[in-house]
């Protein structure tokens, strides 16, 4: 109970912070609009009026609005934060505080992610409606399930990035890991729906966590079905739990080797 209240306070402060410094999202919204505009032009040229791999142009544009929302709009700076904390040594100051570092970082980031979800989510709806109109066949009853899947995608993304950031404990330069992970998410669901991939790669992608960050919630949004939700949501939860334990293990492994020097 005490722990819930403690991290609940962290979340509340993070949310308040996000609302106070709300003008910080303006830059992000402009970039988001640019990306969606460019992708809309690109896919309109690719489609030339037809369907590709089971997606219409309308579905494809909404798909990109959702994937960009999850990965770009609701991103956290956890990778950079981990690097900064470890390399500067400021992580040492947080070890003797009455909270667990991993949980603290998660709830701090969660406040920002929730705020961004509201703001960027609104922008996603506005841009989608302006460019291509409503999603064909979309039912409002499916929205809570799409939201849950989107939030799970964000949580999965967070813990993977946290685990990658904590490699700073052992590696001088770990930016390449971030780039590779970012591009795997990009290519396996964020920019290209999994359905577009060649059959052999599609089968591999289904067993990897990358497509469950963005493809799962976006696919549910543009073509919701109970069968799909039951198929993807448990896998998202499973990968989120695995990523959480990997992040915890990286943290414990890293902290055990910390040497603090006075000064």
């Amino acid at each position, binding site marked *: 109970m005490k722990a819930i209240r403690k991290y609940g306070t962290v979340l509340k402060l993070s949310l308040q912070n996000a609302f106070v410094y709300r003008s910080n999202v303006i830059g992000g919204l*402009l*970039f988001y609009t640019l990306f969606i505009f460019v992708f809309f*032009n690109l896919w309109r040229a*690719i489609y030339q009026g037809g369907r590709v*791999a089971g997606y219409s142009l309308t579905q494809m544009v909404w798909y990109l609005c959702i994937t960009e929302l999850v990965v770009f709009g609701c991103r956290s700076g956890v990778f950079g934060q981990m690097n900064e904390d470890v390399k500067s040594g400021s992580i040492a100051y947080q070890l003797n505080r009455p909270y667990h570092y991993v949980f603290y970082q998660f709830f701090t980031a969660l406040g920002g992610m929730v705020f961004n979800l509201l703001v960027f989510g609104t922008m996603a709806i506005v841009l989608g409606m302006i460019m291509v109109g409503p999603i064909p066949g979309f039912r409002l009853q499916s929205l809570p399930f799409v939201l849950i899947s989107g939030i799970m995608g964000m949580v999965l993304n967070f813990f993977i990035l946290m685990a990658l950031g904590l490699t700073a404990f052992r590696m001088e*330069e770990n930016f*390449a890991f971030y*780039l590779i992970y970012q591009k795997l998410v990009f*290519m396996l669901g964020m920019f290209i729906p999994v359905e577009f991939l*060649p059959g052999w790669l599609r089968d591999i992608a289904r067993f990897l966590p990358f497509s469950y960050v963005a493809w799962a919630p976006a696919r549910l949004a543009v073509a919701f079905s109970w069968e799909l939700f039951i198929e993807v949501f448990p896998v998202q939860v499973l990968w989120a739990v695995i990523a959480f334990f990997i992040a915890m293990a990286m943290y414990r492994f890293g902290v055990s080797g910390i040497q603090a020097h006075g000064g």
Partner: protein
Amino acid sequence: MKRYKGIFRLIGLYFRVNLASAMEYRGSFLLQAFGMALSNGTFVFFWWIAFQQIGGRIGGYDFNDVMFIWAAASSAFGVSNILFANMNAITRLIVTGELDTFLLQPKDVLMNLLCARTSLSAWGDLAYGFVLMALTHGGDWQAWGMFLISIVIGGLLMTAVSVSAHTFTFYLGDASLIGGMALEFIINFCIYPEGIYRGFVRVLMLSVIPASFIVHIPLKLARSFNIWMLLLLFGVSAIYCFIAYRFFYRGLKRYESGNLIITRM
């Protein structure tokens, strides 16, 4: 002439110093460069999938055309960030007062501040362009010629765009958002076929955000050479760079020092 020789000598000196500094941490340098090249390489995968699905042209371009503009954009970006990495930090230098250091030195202020930093990962961008050209254009010497020209022109134009955008800091107080957006615009306009854009955006790409001069016109020249178009390319690029240079110095007249004492190490 003496002034230009001095500028080139300064660029050369900074390049050697920055490279030597990067080589001190060879592992880190190679990892960053390789990571960036690998990151860029994933787009080849996307375009391969897209052309497989469509089976025709996209925005008037075939697969090799897209690889050309990608290679040119990547290497031009690499060159601009290897030589002039501080183009992204102009706003920070102005706002924090670190510009003072460059004002006190007996060298061209803009060139001095642009060259003072390099980006290690940009070597990956530069190398990636060459690898992509080698894989897709092989012995097509016309394409290679235009690729090399577009690297030089593209590097200068990307720098000029960034300088122009960040110069607004002298007028607005903080133009980091404008600077970031300008670079993002130019990259996004460069890496996709020209034909996917229509109307006002095409005008933008031939003026304020000169993406067409960086990749699309060099591609046209690589496919069908025209001396007048080449001269137009050089002329417009030179004019754009000249305007950016003058705009920076006009903005610099409004600069007031914050008396910050800093150490350059």
